[in-house]
């Protein structure tokens, strides 16, 4: 038998590709995962690892909740410490009446699903996040149990460890150049080094997905949205919740800076974030200073914190929300893309759903 013949090829070893490979490997021992660099080299390795559902609506909210429930089992299932803390609270704060309206909408979405979320007054916001200053009009808070943080690298390691134990394989420095088709059916992937064959291919290459889909006449509708985050050293401050400014809920979120604060289990505070129309990985000094200014305006106590690193990553945003499924018209081709800032939260759901769809089992 040809050693390059597999049941499934997954392209892209970010958190989505790794989750897809893991859930496929539970049903098949011939899963190949390839990445043009190495696992978590892209957006999954340049994010805040936030697990959240508050702020999402409709189908996306349902998917997020299902996915966060899966995270609760994954630590055991993967036999890996995921650096996970699902006891955190997500707190949105607003300073305009219009934003108050948006907060009400997201809370109602949660309440209709019996999720523990509530609207709170400005005073209550300050109690939940004592470092906050300014005129806060209202807040929305959703409790722990599901939301919080996960270490994306550890989650990826866990998925990979189990995928390998199940017989799957990861190849680094293997860049997919072309999806191979014959008579409307997939038969493999051509890479920089050669060819790999499988009757089913799943493309999970984030914002770069068009490079593989466009030649097939497909449009992903991905908008690459760069985000920048400032990281402090291990801080003495103890944040009681992940803080988000309600500006994130407004639709015109391009080229804007909104405050997002989150503390890792190690104590570092991640200060974000931006939505930039750029594909460059370099740090934009203007954006950095806007983020610093925004953070200090709401949380002045941060001023003495030392920034040890500034990183940026590129969110694969899609207007209609993520696409997770088979590509119509091409037999054997599936994809998962457009998760925007929700890739970490949605990874387990994406992997499990796609594996079920492709294997008909699980």
């Amino acid at each position, binding site marked *: 038998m040809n050693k390059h013949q597999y049941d499934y090829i997954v392209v892209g070893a970010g958190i989505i590709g790794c989750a897809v490979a893991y859930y496929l490997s539970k049903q098949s021992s011939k899963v190949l995962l390839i990445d043009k660099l*190495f696992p978590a080299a892209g957006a999954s*390795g340049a994010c805040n690892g936030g697990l959240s559902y508050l702020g999402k609506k409709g189908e996306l909210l349902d998917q997020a909740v299902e996915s966060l429930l899966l995270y609760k089992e994954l630590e055991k299932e993967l036999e890996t410490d995921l650096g996970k803390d699902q006891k955190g609270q997500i707190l949105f704060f607003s300073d305009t009446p219009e934003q108050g309206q948006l907060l009400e909408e997201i809370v109602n979405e949660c309440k209709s699903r019996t999720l523990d979320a509530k609207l709170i007054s400005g005073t209550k916001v300050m109690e939940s996040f004592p470092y906050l200053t300014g005129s806060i009009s209202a807040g929305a808070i959703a409790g722990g149990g599901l939301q919080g943080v996960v270490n994306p690298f550890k989650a990826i390691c866990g998925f990979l460890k189990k995928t390998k134990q199940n017989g799957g394989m990861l190849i680094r420095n293997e860049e997919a150049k072309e999806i191979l088709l014959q008579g409307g059916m997939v038969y493999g992937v051509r890479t920089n080094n050669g060819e790999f064959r499988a009757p089913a291919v799943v493309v999970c290459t984030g914002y770069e997905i068009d490079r593989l889909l466009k030649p097939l006449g497909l449009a992903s509708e991905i908008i690459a949205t760069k985000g920048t985050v400032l990281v402090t050293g291990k801080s003495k401050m103890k944040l009681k919740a992940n803080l988000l400014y309600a500006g994130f809920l407004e639709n015109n979120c391009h080229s804007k800076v909104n405050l997002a604060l989150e503390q890792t289990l190690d104590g570092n505070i991640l200060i974000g974030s931006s939505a930039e129309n750029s594909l460059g990985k370099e*740090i934009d*000094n203007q954006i950095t*200073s806007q983020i*610093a200014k925004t953070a200090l305006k709401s949380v002045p106590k941060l001023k003495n*914190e*030392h920034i040890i690193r500034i990183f940026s990553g590129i969110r694969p945003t899609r207007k209609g929300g993520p696409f997770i499924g088979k590509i119509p018209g091409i037999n054997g081709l599936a994809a998962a893309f457009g998760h925007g800032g929700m890739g970490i939260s949605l990874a387990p759901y994406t992997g499990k759903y796609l594996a079920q769809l492709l294997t008909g089992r699980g």
Partner: protein
Amino acid sequence: MADDNIICRCEEVTETEILQAIKDGAVAFDEIKRLTRAGMGHCQGSTCSILVDNLLRSANPGITLHKHTPRPPLQPVKLEAFVKSASGSQGEANE
């Protein structure tokens, strides 16, 4: 391990941990950084990135190493300094 070498002083990552990451297939400093936290501390890999690259080279003779992704700032800087540094430049005008 008592006689293990510390490779990353900031995050106290040992040679054994780095070698394990390489054994697990890691091919780049940026990947080892994600796996072990080596290079994620106060000095951001100023010291250990060279040591890690050397370990990668000795484990994989002839390997072409990926370039590191250097991230600012070069040394820790107070948050308020970022606001001041933009004063009078476009940062103010953009508000």
